[in-house]
């Protein structure tokens, strides 16, 4: 137990590597075995990450489970891991999302099965690593390493325009992160360390700080994605296979928000304050613009992709209002959005596997042919709108409450976004599930076991967080409090 707790972060990161090695040894014809191996690997990884949650002491604000080993002494870079209240919740979210991905693509991936599960496990390693890393070089390596499997997942198993989307996704995010790399190197040259905990305490002249902030912010803003640089997201989400969309929506775009809270805010507080107005305006534009796009969109996946842009607008709105309530709300909203949007993408994937159409006008009256499925979809729709009792409400409410204390004008526009959100989601639900039964979808196969499990798990979380949010908010209270205190 002692060993387990001392090395738990490394274990969670590298445990899927065992699965990768096992899968590499298995003959590629034995697909079922490959699936089971990867499923069991991820389940164990998931259990480990929940064990991490259980052992976290949420009264402390500093980093816990710290591991620090020599990596490249020559440039003073360490293999330095640790979690605090801000990053902690993302780790179970990552492993949980990967678990859902494996469940949902059990039958829908038919070619190059071995490669697909290898890519998924590799993604898991890189995702968890990004959230744990406290050394900027390690962080950057994990951050960029995600691009490799995601590029392959979108490009190989995606839809008709997959190649265009994959390359666009890759180049867009690569473009953003190289500026961060320059920033990281500059910080190193200035202070001689890549250690996050030391860099946070440094002060810079304002101009330098502003430039550094912009360098980091470009990388994060593209990942989030914020309004003018969001165009990769609808393409990538739409063309990716279901599992790819779930990972993109669930984790990848959270990396941007996480980056803002973890790096941009504490490391460059003056610049964050200076640019906060700009970012608030961009967030509000994202909320409303993406909402309006959703109203006219006919492609199911594209609609949900744009709704992610809108929801992530709330997250950046919360982060840059510098209010502890709003920041807590933003982190919770990222978790919620990961669960709910991931689930919505899975829902779309389920019908897409049966009909091979993503067009809304193709469907209609689906509630009669797939009643159970309709019920699940309803839960996620309502949570996405933010109905009280579901997790979406808590996140949006906290963000709006916190932002109201800091900046009232923005809240008015933000709340407008909630209404638009309700409009497009409910209208979507009406067009797909009610109205007359469209003959295209008159006969549908019922839900399979793996799909059912993949839908039940997020449903439980939706209500759990919705009814007892304190179980998650407790984790971040202390860390967010210190964060905001250091800002002012």
């Amino acid at each position, binding site marked *: 137990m002692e060993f387990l707790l001392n090395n738990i972060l490394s274990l969670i990161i590298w445990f899927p590597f065992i699965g990768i090695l096992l899968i590499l040894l298995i003959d*590629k014809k034995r697909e079922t075995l490959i699936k089971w191996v990867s499923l069991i690997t991820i389940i164990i990884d998931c259990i480990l990450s929940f064990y991490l949650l259980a052992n976290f002491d949420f009264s402390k604000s500093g980093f816990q489970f710290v591991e620090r080993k*020599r*990596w*490249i*002494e*020559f*440039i003073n870079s360490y293999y330095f891991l640790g979690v605090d209240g801000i990053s902690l919740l993302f780790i179970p979210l990552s492993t949980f999302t990967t678990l859902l991905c494996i469940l949902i693509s059990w039958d829908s991936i038919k070619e*190059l099965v*071995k*490669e697909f599960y290898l890519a998924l496990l590799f993604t898991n390693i890189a995702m968890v690593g990004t959230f744990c890393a406290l050394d900027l*070089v390690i962080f*950057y*390596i*994990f951050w*960029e*390493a995600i*691009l*490799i499997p995601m*590029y*392959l997942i979108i*490009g*190989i198993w995606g839809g008709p325009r*997959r*190649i265009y989307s*994959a*390359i666009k996704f*890759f*180049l867009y995010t*690569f*473009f953003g992160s*190289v*500026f961060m*790399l*320059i920033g990281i*190197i*500059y910080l*190193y*040259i200035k202070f001689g360390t890549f250690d996050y905990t030391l860099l946070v305490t440094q002060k810079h002249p304002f101009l330098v700080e502003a430039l550094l902030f912009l360098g980091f912010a470009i990388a994060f803003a593209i990942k989030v994605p914020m309004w003018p640089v969001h165009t990769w997201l609808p393409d990538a989400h739409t063309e990716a296979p279901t599992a790819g969309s779930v990972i993109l929506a669930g984790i990848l775009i959270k990396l941007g928000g996480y980056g803002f809270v973890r790096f941009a805010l504490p490391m460059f507080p003056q610049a964050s304050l200076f640019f906060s107005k700009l970012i608030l305006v961009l967030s509000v534009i994202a909320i409303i613009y993406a909402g309006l796009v959703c109203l006219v969109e006919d492609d199911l996946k594209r609609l949900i992709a744009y709704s992610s842009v809108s929801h992530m607008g709330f997250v950046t709105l919360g982060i840059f209002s510098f209010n502890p309530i709003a920041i807590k709300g933003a982190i919770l909203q990222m978790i919620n959005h990961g669960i709910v949007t991931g689930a919505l993408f899975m829902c779309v994937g389920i019908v897409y596997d049966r009909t091979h159409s993503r067009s809304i006008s193709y469907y209609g009256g689906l509630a009669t042919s797939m009643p159970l499925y309709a019920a699940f979809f309803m839960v996620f729709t309502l949570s996405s709108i933010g109905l009280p009792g579901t997790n979406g409400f808590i996140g949006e409410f906290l963000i709006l409450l916190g932002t109201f204390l800091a900046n009232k004008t923005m809240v008015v526009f933000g709340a407008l976004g909630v209404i638009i959100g309700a409009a497009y989601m409910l209208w979507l639900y009406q067009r797909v599930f009610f109205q007359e039964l469209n003959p295209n979808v008159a006969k549908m196969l019922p839900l399979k076991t793996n799909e059912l499990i993949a839908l039940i798990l997020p449903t439980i979380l939706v209500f759990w967080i919705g009814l007892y949010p304190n179980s998650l908010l407790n984790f971040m209270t202390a860390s967010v409090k210190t964060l905001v205190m250091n800002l002012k």
Partner: protein
Amino acid sequence: MGITLNFSVILTEIIFVLISSLIFLIDKFIKNKNYAFYITLITLVLAFYIVLFVPFGEFTYAYKADFYSSVIKLFLVGGTLLISLISYSYLQYYVNLNSGEYYGFLLFSLVGAFLMLSGMDLVTIYLAMELMSFPVYFLIALNYTYYRASLEGALKYFIVGSLGSIFILIGLGVIYYFGGTFLLQEIFNKLAQNFYFKEFLIGFIFLLIGFSIKLSLVPFHMWAPDAYESAPVPITSFIAGIVKFAVMATLVKIILIGFNPLKIEIGEIFIPIILASILIGNVMAIKQDNIIRMLAYSSIAHAGYAGLGIISADYAGYSFTIFYMLIYLIMTIGIFGILALLANYKRELLHIPSMASLCEKAPFISFLILVFMFSLAGIPPTAGFIAKFYVFMSLIKTKYVWVALIAIIFAIIGAYPYLRVLKVIYMDKEPLEFYFKYDFAFLIPVVLTALLVLLIGVYPKPWTDIIYKTMYFYISSLFYYS
């Protein structure tokens, strides 16, 4: 101080010359052509041993075996060993490349590289560079039986190379006119006493032109795609990896020992050349359909990235230049090893669009290509990223942030050609007929280099230490004992 003739110092080169001459002599009389491979293999293993244990010292003023040259020689021998393994399987399929001449020239070229690395005066370096280049021209022209245009490539390389020699000679003339010496140490002493700064700089610029032709830096790059395409595939990796590595290491050495007081000015001269190389190499690579031409343009860009360390005019920067070239050597051997295998079984596969759905016929090979392509593009966790990271770091350290920014933006353009290869291999679906079997001469070099690429990407410490400490010891020995 009299001239010392210590033959044990120069033993490696003597053995190489003797053995390659022996190969030329007996080649006519031996029917089984594989003998040359075994002789080369034994020679190289022996050379590895000798380089490790040869005493440091001078052979006349013109040659000096020291720490720096020995370490680089070890890498060169290792690289050539892997390349000759690739050549072995390549020559089983392309029998008309006369294998005696092939390996003989390979060894001769390596002798040139060794002499160049150890050369302590500019004339020796110039002659050694010619000795290194001439066998390569012949090696390209050897491919004549399989690819008619290879004569054109060889001739182009030869003419451009001769142009480079002329420039070097002019540079030597200028330097000798003002300095009265070719010895690097003497040049350093003259410069240290503030004599003839401008004149030496002009001389160095002429030298630089000659060197950039060998490094295929813009605007002296036009021979590269033709020569690369014309050469037998393993020789292409020799040109791109070994020759460039040796030339870059020599250039760094010349700057370190001879032109040290001028290093900041030299760095400034490098800026436009390097940025243009990175830009043109990356942009031109986008449209190439032949993968070897694509890699030729990418090699222009990679020479540019390595040169970023020279811009920084800093000892750490120089060691990162060497480190970059080392990583590039590893990647080149790996990727060309794979291409040699493809060329063995189906030469059309060197055309990028016809590689479609290779991942179904050859998943392992496709995976290796994936590793090398991401490494060439500089995506972590591969060695290519670490190498780029270090050169950018040295640039930012010396206040050339803007150069780093421009170079890094060009790097984004540069990612596309590699992604395109992967796109074709993994994402395009077309029927492909391709049968092959693995052999050890293919697996050893390619798997070894792929492992190294991943290993250095995850744990670069020992490798950077080797290069950096070599540089450090070398510099301290230079400035304390001379």
